[in-house]
Structure formats: structure tokens, C-alpha cells
């Protein structure tokens, strides 16, 4: 078990490391660098930099070095000093920018995941048990519509409705009075009251997918012999379905959990941009667009770390859920 964890964690580290290399070079792939971006932006509102000022900026940001050197410096600082570098665009250390937003992203992602489960699992079960019933069709249809509406569209419409008809303050996950307040129960409630729109928007696509998955898996499981055994024991249909086939059908679902999680994290970017949430998404998008190198790289590193962590989590869940996998892990047979 311990060796399993050690093995997995070291694999994770390697994966994240490779991702940092790949993403670093993807970020610098577009033509130009951060200084080009700010010069362009400045030009757009009429400001003109003088040549020496541009050179100064480039030297200051270390952009006069080769990409390889830049990467080594950044990685070296992370490894040896725990320093993630400095955001060009925000003029603050990357760690300062990320810490709070990463928390919000994680919260939002997890709440969305919860939302998807709470909505999709019962509906999926219902759809499978009452296959081809009116309810099944309705659930499938609504689910698919959720899948079909582009997130950003839904987000914008909900945003408009919320401020136009409910007069809710727009953008962000907190009301103004709580933004800089320390954590309290009221702040938490305030967060919840702002979370529902992004959660719904982010959750729709995932919900449809999970409903479909649960339904298909469960349909397979409902005809397994152990269901008959349980039925023969005299269990009521509801107890039986939940204790046996549902639990069994969760397996493939849990192993796909991470895909879902990664999708939510990716989808979060667009939704957060539209809704003006201060999560990592808009930060990353902006950083990418203006090649705020260390900010973008660090964000991707953290996000992919989250994703890899999600894989581990889903594997651990799987172990929790499936004694067979637990045994494999114990015996060191699992990757």
C-alpha cells in the first residue's frame, strides 16, 4: 500500500514535471513576448514606449535570455527556493496571486462535482431502473440539452437574468462587503449564494454525461447474477438496487472521475471569464494571452497537479470502492 502510494506520487511528480516543460514551451510558442504585449497594449491607448524603455523592460523581465535558460531559472527557483517567480502583468509574486484563487477554483470544481453527483446519480439510477419510461426520456432529453448549450452562452444569460431580474451583484464569488473579510460562516453562506450560477453552468455538461454513464453502466449491472441473488434474499427492490448494482456501476464512473474533474477545471476558465469570478481561469487566460510567462506556467503546473491529484483521488476512491483493486494495490500489481 505504502509502496503503491510512493510509486504513484513519484509518477505524478514526473508527469507534472513533463507537463511543465511542455506547457512552458507552448506558452512561448506564439510570436512575441510579454513586452511585445504591453507595448501593443500601450499603443492601443496611445502610449508610445521609447526603444530603450522596451529594451529595459525586456532585460528586467529576463526575456533577453533564451527560453531554455528562462525555464531552468524558473524551475530551479521552484525546486530550491519554493519561489514560483514573479508575474509580469501583476507585478506581484506568482504565489501571492495563485494561493487564494486556487482555493476558489478547487472549491468551485468540487462543489460542481458534488452538484453533478447529487443531480446525476439519482437521475441516472432512475433512468436505468425505469428504462424507456417517460421519466427516462425526459431526463435524457434535459441532460442532453444541458450538454448542447455552450457554457459561455448559458453563463451570460444567467448573468443577465441575475442582475436584471434579481438585482444580484455581478461578478465574483463574494459580495463586496465580504471580499476582503476574514473567513466566517456568513462569508461562507455568501459564497454559496454566489456559487449557484457557475455551478449550474459548469455542471450541466457534466451532469448529462454522468447521467448517461451511470445509466449505461447500471443497465449492464442490473442483469448480473448477483442482483438475482440479492432479489432471492428478499431484499426490497430499492435497497437491492442501491446496495448492489449501483455500487458496482460506480466503478467505471469513478475511474472516469478525473476526466470529469479536468473538464470542469478547463471549463471553469470560460465560465469564470463570463461571470467575472476571481478564480484561476481568467488569471490563466490573461496570463496566456499576454505571455505572462511564470504566472501562466505556474498556473498550469498547479492545475495539472490538481488534475493528477484527481487521478490519484479517483484511484483511491476506486480502491475504497472495489476490494479487488484494493488487493491489487496491496500486492503492488497496479500502476
Amino acid at each position, binding site marked *: 500500500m505504502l509502496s503503491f502510494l510512493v510509486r504513484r506520487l513519484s509518477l505524478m511528480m514526473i*508527469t507534472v514535471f513533463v507537463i511543465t516543460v511542455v506547457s512552458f514551451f507552448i506558452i512561448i510558442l*506564439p510570436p512575441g513576448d510579454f513586452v511585445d504585449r504591453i507595448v501593443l497594449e500601450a499603443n492601443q491607448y496611445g502610449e508610445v514606449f521609447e526603444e530603450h524603455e522596451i529594451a529595459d523592460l525586456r532585460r528586467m523581465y529576463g526575456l533577453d535570455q533564451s527560453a531554455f535558460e528562462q525555464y531552468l531559472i524558473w524551475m530551479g527557483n521552484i525546486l530550491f527556493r519554493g519561489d514560483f517567480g514573479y508575474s509580469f502583468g501583476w507585478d506581484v509574486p506568482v504565489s501571492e496571486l495563485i494561493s487564494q484563487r486556487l482555493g476558489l477554483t478547487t472549491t468551485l470544481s468540487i462543489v460542481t462535482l458534488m452538484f453533478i453527483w447529487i443531480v446525476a446519480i439519482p437521475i441516472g439510477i432512475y433512468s436505468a431502473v425505469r428504462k424507456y419510461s417517460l421519466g427516462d426520456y425526459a431526463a435524457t432529453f434535459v441532460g442532453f440539452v444541458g450538454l448542447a448549450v455552450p457554457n459561455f452562452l448559458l453563463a451570460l444569460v444567467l448573468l443577465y437574468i441575475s442582475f436584471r431580474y434579481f438585482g444580484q451583484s455581478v461578478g465574483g464569488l463574494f459580495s463586496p462587503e465580504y471580499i476582503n473579510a476574514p473567513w466566517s460562516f456568513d462569508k461562507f453562506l455568501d459564497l454559496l449564494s454566489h456559487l449557484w450560477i457557475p455551478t449550474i453552468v459548469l455542471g450541466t455538461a457534466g451532469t448529462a454525461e454522468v447521467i448517461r454513464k451511470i445509466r449505461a453502466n447500471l443497465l449492464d449491472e442490473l442483469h448480473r447474477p448477483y442482483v438475482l441473488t440479492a432479489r432471492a434474499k428478499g431484499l426490497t427492490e430499492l435497497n437491492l438496487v442501491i446496495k448492489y448494482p449501483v455500487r458496482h456501476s460506480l466503478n467505471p464512473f469513478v475511474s472516469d472521475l478525473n476526466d470529469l474533474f479536468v473538464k470542469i477545471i478547463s471549463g471553469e476558465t470560460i465560465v469564470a471569464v463570463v461571470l467575472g469570478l476571481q478564480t484561476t481561469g481568467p488569471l490563466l487566460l490573461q496570463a496566456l494571452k499576454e505571455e505572462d510567462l511564470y504566472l501562466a506556467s505556474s498556473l498550469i503546473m498547479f492545475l495539472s497537479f490538481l488534475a493528477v491529484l484527481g487521478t490519484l483521488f479517483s484511484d483511491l476512491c476506486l480502491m475504497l470502492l472495489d476490494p479487488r483493486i484494493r488487493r491489487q494495490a496491496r500486492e503492488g500489481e497496479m500502476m
Partner: protein
Amino acid sequence: MSFSAENASYGTLIWRRFRRHRLGFLGFLFTIFIYLVAAFTEFLAPHSQSTYKARDVYAPPQSLRFFVQDRSGQEIFQLHVLGYRSKVDYDSGKRTFVEDPRKIIPLGFWVRGDKYDLWGLVEFDRHLFGPIKKSDRVYFFGADRLGRDVLSRTIHATRVSMTIGLVGVALSLILGIMIGGISGFFGGFIDLGIQRMIEILQSIPSIPLWIGLAAAIPPTAPPIQTYFLITIILSIIGWTGLARVVRGRFMALKDEDFIKAARLDGNRPMRIIFKYMLPNFLSHIIAVVTLAIPGMIIAETSLSFLGIGLRQPVVSWGVLLQEAQNLKSISTAPWLFLPGFAVVLAVLSLNFLGDGLRDAGDPYET
């Protein structure tokens, strides 16, 4: 179990099962419909995608009317819409439109309108439906900020959006089958390496990938090239899932008795792959592919939203929605969101179709 037609091939059986899947079949019909629209956009759209009329900026949708009064005051049947009287009001920042009952715009089928090259071959100016008078305009979906017909633009966008999904998935499929197949067939270290690569690709959030790659598209690329580069970008991200499916299938099939039998029959690996393995997961792959197309369509809209997708003057649903993606449109010109319904319809149809295909995929399952 018995089969009503004993000579029925595998494909026939799938089709028969598929026919019984009601939603799937409905999805199939709609999908065909949408692709037909994509094939005949110029003919089906009343106007070209770029025809504009300055006076009709943000004209709301018109409704179809059926009867007009002739000179004697008698009601006669004539499809028509009412033209607008409009006035700009700077204070409200708007052009206000009032239907003018005297401005009857008669509509008809097979009418002459904007010229186009059908499939780049024949020059033609007939349109399925539209105003009888060439200079008239009809806006069933309203007009956009340049006074262009949203319906016509939606129809024109169908081609790009629907084919981008198709081409993108086809590319992903080629990559997925090749890489997944290699991974699954050879196994061992190659498999391990490819699996790691897929894992890494899947752990990178897709947006940085998109942005990085999209920005690398040369700005001088003509629209058609941009279009293909965008599909390539979409498929670079899309292939991993397919590769996994293919690999899984390969792995499972490799141990099937009939594959062993094929080896014993002296077949070479290539023949085993193409004659035995591929046909046996083709139906599954088709289903997966069908389910991947809507993902591509949505992804294309997302790319456009991020401002790194297709660019004007190319119209895709993503481009149209991106143009509409602002509070101004919601608040004062909600009809600009109508292309969204096309997206929903297409995605729904393809999903239902894919679901049906998947359910029908294995005719031996009960």
C-alpha cells in the same frame, strides 16, 4: 435466439436494431437534415452571408404572413412579411423599427437573389425561399449589427461548423487509431510510453493548449487554411480519448479466440488488424466518433469565444455566437442568439444518433 433473415450481415443487424432506437433514429434523420443544409447552404439561405443593409441594423425578426388584400379589398393568399420603418434615436442608442403595413414584401420559392457559386462549380442565383423582389430583404431571425440576415448567416455557418466537427473527428480518429492501435497491438514499453503521453496530454488543461497552438497559426493564413489548422488543433486534443478507446478494444480483441484462430490460419498482423480487429470495433468506433462530433462543435464555439477560433469573414456558429456574446445582444437584440439553437439541435441530434448507434453496436447483446 433466432434471426429472421439468416443471411443478414452484421451491418444489416445493426441497422435493424438501430431502427428500433427511436431517439437515435430521430437523431439520425436530423443529422442528415443538418448535413443536407450544410451541403446546400447558398441555395437554402435567402441571402448571402455578407449582404447587408445599413437601414436594417438590428432589425428584429419578421413574422411570416399569409394573406394580403388586393385592390378590391379581397383577401388573397400571398406569403409575405411587412417591411420596417426605422428611425435612429441617438439618446437611446437604438434604431427603432415599426412594421409598416403598407410595405408588403412578397415572398416566394425558387426566387432570384444573391449570386453564388454552388460548390465552386456553377454560378447560380436561385434561392429556395426568399423575397420575390431581389432588392428586398427578409429577416426571419432578425438582422445583426451590420444589417445582415441572421437566418442566412446561421445557414451559411452550418457548413463550417458541421464539417469542422467531422474533419476534426476524422483527424482525431486517424491519430487515435494509429497511436491507439500501435499501443494496443504491440503492448509492452511502446504501450507504456504512449499511455504516459496520453495521460500527460489529458492532464494539461485544454485552454493553454488551445491558446498556445492557435496563436501559432500564421496570421497570413487564408481562411480555409485557418479552418484546417483549427481542426488540427481540436483534434490534437481530441485524439487521446479515441486512442484510449481503440487501445482498449485492441487489448480486448487481441485475446479473443477468433483473433487467435486468425493467427493460426497463418494471417499476417496487418491482415489481422484490418480484416479482423478493425471491423469488429468499427461500429463501436463509429458510435464514439458520432459522440465526439458534438464535442468538437462545442469546442469550436469555445475557441471562438476565446477569440482564437475562426475569424471573420468565415462564419461558423461559434463566430456568430461570439458576435452575440455580449450584454447588448441579450438586452436589445436577443435574436442574435438564435444560432445557438442550431448548435443545440446539432449537438442533440448527433448525441442521440451516437447513443442509438452505440446501443445498436453489438447485435448479439440482448
